[in-house]
């Protein structure tokens, strides 16, 4: 069984069929990319997987368990973590605190333990902090650990968001346009980082516009156009796929 299985997924917004009968699998340990022109339904697909939107029909299995219909926090607990196209960090909190939220599902102190400041929570907090610093370090943004998140650069924010997603130690990482707004050097760095993440055993599913990045790092590519899957293949086959070239470049 594949790690993530998507079967006949459908989502409509009024008359718009944003995701039309899409099926594909993501095998454990691979980097899979979803590409397609603007409005192809890529982000909708992501929101369906992460539980932010309910599907009209179809099924999503993760680790052989059906996850569509679950709330986002339940899906996160199953081991799926995500980043956003337009970075969603917690404002009013420092970079470190943001990443510490990533450890939420890996820790357990509740309201009572928190209010009474029970001794066992101290070591838990300490571990959360140490782990979070490690991830900030890994992403090369450790120097802004104590800076409020709106006071750091866009590139650093992206790093913090990555660190937060990784801090939850996911099995599957969903990356929504990780290279959006980055220059070519930063994009290359993100590419190397994604390879490194995969090496540590995390499966990656990404949506991306930057073709060079996708072709360089993905093991397999799914192409969407107007909500339908038009191709699913290895990167070099996708580059020669006439249907794909047609939707990207036009008919003649």
């Amino acid at each position, binding site marked *: 069984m594949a790690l993530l299985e998507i079967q006949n997924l459908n989502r409509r917004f009024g008359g718009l069929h944003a995701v039309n009968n899409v099926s594909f699998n993501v095998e454990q340990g691979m980097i899979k990319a979803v590409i397609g022109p603007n409005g192809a339904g890529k982000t909708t697909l992501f929101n369906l997987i*992460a539980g*932010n939107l309910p599907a009209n029909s179809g099924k999503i299995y993760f680790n052989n368990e059906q996850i569509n219909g679950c*709330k*986002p*926090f339940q899906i*996160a*607990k199953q081991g799926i*973590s*995500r980043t*956003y196209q*337009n970075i*969603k*960090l*917690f*404002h*009013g*909190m420092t970079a470190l*605190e*943001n990443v*510490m*939220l*990533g450890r*939420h*599902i890996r*820790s*357990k*102190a*509740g*309201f009572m*333990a*928190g*209010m*009474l*400041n029970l001794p066992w*929570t101290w070591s*838990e*907090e300490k571990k*959360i902090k140490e782990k979070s610093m490690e991830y900030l370090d890994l992403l090369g943004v450790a120097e802004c650990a104590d800076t409020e998140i709106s006071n750091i650069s*866009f590139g650093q924010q992206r790093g913090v968001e990555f660190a*937060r997603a990784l801090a*939850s130690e996911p099995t599957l990482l969903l990356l929504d346009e990780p290279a959006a*707004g980055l220059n070519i050097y930063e994009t290359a760095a993100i590419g190397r980082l994604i390879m490194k993440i995969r090496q540590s055993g995390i499966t990656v599913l990404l949506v991306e516009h930057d073709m060079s990045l996708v072709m360089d790092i993905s093991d397999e590519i799914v192409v969407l156009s107007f909500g339908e899957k038009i191709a699913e293949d290895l990167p070099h086959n996708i580059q020669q796929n006439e249907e794909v070239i047609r939707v990207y470049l036009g008919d003649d």
Partner: protein
Amino acid sequence: MDLLKRYVPVLFLLAVVVTIQLVTHFTETTYYLTQLTMSAYYSIVVIGLCVLMGYGGQISLGHAGFFAIGGYLAGALTTHNLMTLKNYGFVSLLDKVGLLVDSKGLYGGDLLTVEPWAACIIAVLTAGVIAFAIGGPILKLKGHYLAMATLGFGIIIYRIGLASAYFGEADGISEVPGFILLPGIEVSGSFGARVLNYYIAWGMVIIAVILLLNLIHSRVGRALRSIHGAEEAANAMGVNTARYKLYIFVLSAVFAALAGVFVTHYNGGIGPSEAGVMKSVRYVAIVAVGGMANIWGALIMGILLNFLSLRGVFGSYDDAVFGMILIVIMLFAPQGILRINPWQQVKSFFSVPTPKSGKDVTD
């Protein structure tokens, strides 16, 4: 180290509390202690609301309602005579378990009432359960809609107090007995117990402050702030946002109800004005003046403004003053009055607005 930083201000508060008591003792101005005691209780409502608003990011214009649920139930249960019902199975069962007390009324009649401890627990639990029940559906609302829904709740509680004979209609409940917390420690308005009650109230405040400070510095506090920062992302990180919002709502309601119970025993009664919408607005205004996500700010402003109000400094413009405070704070110091930088304010007030640059190009 962090712990030290957290608790040192608490010790400082304790020192201030003792100092004030000593000063009033030697200057023979102990009458101030009465208003300081009441301000302390109201501040418990305020800091509970502060955590809900400033950290959880949810507004409530119905907290006077929870205060009233606590106060009215404690008042009614410890005051209404159950003597005529003594032969009913349920009442006699309560009597046998020791939840009722026999006493002599003002005019010598026999009184059978609920023991204050039992009444307190019933009152606070009721407030918690009601908060839980209404919190589920209404916390799905955001912003203005949540404000309106909680406002509606406050109005309902106010009208129930005003309309039901059990809660004394427009007169409210009076002759509420004292609340013996421990042998020798009684919450009551009697003249001789003024100093003791001052310390009881401040002891309660200090416990409440410590509990809430611990909470906001814990994993749960961080999760609450993340909901305030970006709810969708908090959910995607595994925070059960709906449940956290509900729990913090219930917690702040319980704090309000507890304050209501103590104020009612201290004053020896409660009236419908305690449940009024203007009271809820007052609590929100104080949290705003204190700086929203600032427990110490809320506490300081809670004491100060309630004290001035109780001393009658604002006269008959009392509610108007709090309305005014809310407007001024929202306009000039949305971060709260304690974080205000007056020179910056004057400068920006007279400067020509310039387009913001650099910050919005990120998307």
